[in-house]
């Protein structure tokens, strides 16, 4: 019996071989996907892990035979986080490289600068930028994978509400991210019954924020402080909070969700609360958590390949690439317009940032459940819930 079955199988395989080969020949080799990433420049801490992630997973996908029988060819340009450069590269991807979809840019400003380019060209863009304005108002071809900055505020306020804290102080940078998170927080506060009693800002190049924090600390009745920042200033704020002796709960945001922030802040990071993607605490998630498998797989793959601890930022690139590839598989073609339609139909996709449910009204598809409240304990991420 087994002999016969084996014979049948192998002959089938032999028969199938030419058909498969014809299939690949018909599909003409490769499908080109463009990526615009801030691999250098001030946002390099976003672009670098994103680039590594994309390269790593495209290689893996190709080793498994690519998508729809075609190998993926990744065309990456380093935009340095600069909007005008990004625009030039976007034109190049559309006109010269003729890509079927674009991943990135890493930040919000450049994304806004090129959204008209992809709208005109009719090819889908999956941005890794945080600002809500990327997908609100909605643009037909523009999607994004990271949580919006306003969601960070909402998650923090939700946590404050649970703890019956109603008076918050804000400290934000004057850069695009800081501004956007500040506006998001001010807009979201009333919904959660939170009153913003102090509103301080600083310049991203500033070296000392103790005056602003002293003012917040001395605001009458203040019950919590929320910071909107990333990079070195975020660590300086964290240290200064400890230094001026703030005793109320201190919240950071998802922009600091990398190991380097903990390293820079040292002891001052202990006990700070922040909303972040599940991937940051992958190994500490409950086994029943649907995200655990994906998050842990990404963490192990990334850390093994690069030897560096993961940040949530590379995860956004993973989510973007996988949403795109799955949409292509569902569409059974790489025709940009059909792929766009399929991206919009993404349902229940489990990514590193959360579970994506996109609709024709929501091109991000994440809700607050995607955020976990985490804290730092003994120099490591810990679930705070």
């Amino acid at each position, binding site marked *: 019996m087994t002999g016969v079955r084996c014979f049948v199988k192998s002959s089938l395989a032999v028969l199938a071989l030419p058909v498969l080969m014809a299939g690949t020949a018909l599909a003409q080799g490769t499908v080109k996907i463009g990526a615009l990433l801030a691999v250098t420049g001030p946002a390099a801490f976003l672009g670098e892990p994103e680039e590594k992630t994309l390269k790593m997973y495209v290689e893996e996908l190709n080793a498994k035979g690519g998508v729809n029988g075609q190998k993926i060819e990744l065309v990456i340009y380093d935009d340095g986080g600069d909007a005008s450069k990004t625009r030039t590269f976007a034109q190049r991807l559309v006109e010269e490289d003729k890509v079927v979809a674009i991943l990135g840019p890493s930040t919000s400003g450049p994304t806004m600068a090129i959204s008209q380019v992809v709208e005109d060209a009719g090819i889908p863009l999956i941005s890794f930028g945080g600002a809500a304005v990327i997908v609100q108002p909605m643009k037909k071809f523009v999607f994004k994978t990271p949580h919006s900055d306003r969601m960070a505020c909402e998650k923090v306020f939700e946590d404050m509400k649970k703890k019956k804290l109603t008076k918050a102080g804000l400290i934000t940078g004057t850069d695009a991210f800081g501004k956007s998170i500040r506006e998001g927080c001010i807009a979201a506060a009333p919904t959660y019954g939170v009153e913003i009693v102090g509103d301080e800002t600083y310049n991203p190049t500033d070296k000392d924020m103790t*005056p602003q924090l002293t003012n917040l600390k001395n605001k009458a009745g203040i019950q919590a402080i929320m910071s909107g920042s990333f990079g070195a200033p975020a660590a300086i704020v964290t240290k200064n909070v400890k230094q001026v002796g703030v005793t109320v709960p201190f919240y950071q945001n998802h922009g600091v969700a990398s190991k380097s922030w903990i390293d820079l802040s*040292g002891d001052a990071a202990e006990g700070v609360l922040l909303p972040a993607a599940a991937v940051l605490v992958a190994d500490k998630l409950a086994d029943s958590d649907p995200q655990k498998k994906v998050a842990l797989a990404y963490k192990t793959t990334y850390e093994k390949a690069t030897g560096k601890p993961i940040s949530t930022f590379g995860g956004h690139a993973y989510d973007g690439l996988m949403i795109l590839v799955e949409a292509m598989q569902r569409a059974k073609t790489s025709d940009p317009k059909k792929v766009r339609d399929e991206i919009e139909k993404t349902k229940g996709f489990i990514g590193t940032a959360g579970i994506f449910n996109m609709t024709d009204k929501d091109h991000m598809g994440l809700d607050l459940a995607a955020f976990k409240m985490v804290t730092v304990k003994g120099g490591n991420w810990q679930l705070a819930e």
Partner: protein
Amino acid sequence: MLLPRNLKALCRLWVADRFMAELLQFVISGLTVGAVYALVALGFTLIYNATDVVNFAQGEFVMIGGMVSAFAYAAGVPLMFAAMLAIIVAIIVGLILYRFGIEPARGASSVVLIIITIGASIAMRGLAALVFDKQFHKLPAFSGEAAIRVLDASIVPQALWVLGGALVIVAALWLFLTRTLFGKAVLATAANRMAAQLVGVNTSFVMSFSFAASAAIGAIAGVLVTPITFTSYDVGTALALKGFAAAVLGGMGNPLGAVAGGLIIGLLEALGAGYVSSSYKDAIAFMVLIGVLMLMPGGLFGKAHTERV
């Protein structure tokens, strides 16, 4: 009858106390940041005096100080030696900048020389990004992180290191310039290069010395401040701008003015952020700078300007 009055007095005392604590916190913040500006401004002044060059790569010396020491420390070198290594590297870079950037172009106008230093600063930044990386790095605080509390204001011990370090450097520089023969040769070169040369001062050596000394001062500032502010390949640009503003405010070429200018700008920023609005604190500092320059074009401590013919 007595109680309310007591209460009122207590209350007034408390308000005064809190006001003092706030003020003290702002002043400490301003002095710490200002001390760094002062050291950068001092570097500008030294080179400007000896060579008439405004060296816009001055901020990069601070960066080199921070980056080299942070990397050496991370590699296991004791803090003290890491700091010394950083200073030596900065001095070498300073000498290279003088020998291959400034000296060959000595006949050129000062605008050309300034542009050379801007080019050098961009090159140094790019090299640092390649040699090191683009991440932020830190050094441990020299004597712990626990804040010292004075009148309800808190000072991190490292801030005292920065202030003390700046004080020592300024004092040493002053002693050197006024009490040693070589120091006087530096002053002579600053006053009149041709005359100094005629009385036998090796002006070329004095000029390389000024670059080396500026680099060393910058690097020391970088080492002192990195535990507070962190460092990365591109911290130099912002520091050079603030340091230059400080040097101009104090009177370009006056070491005392450079220090005063740095501290004033630092204080204005901190008090502006504390009492007026954190959004306008840079604007406040620069508005004062413009105001001073309109009234006293030579800066606070500048000599009345005389055109050299």
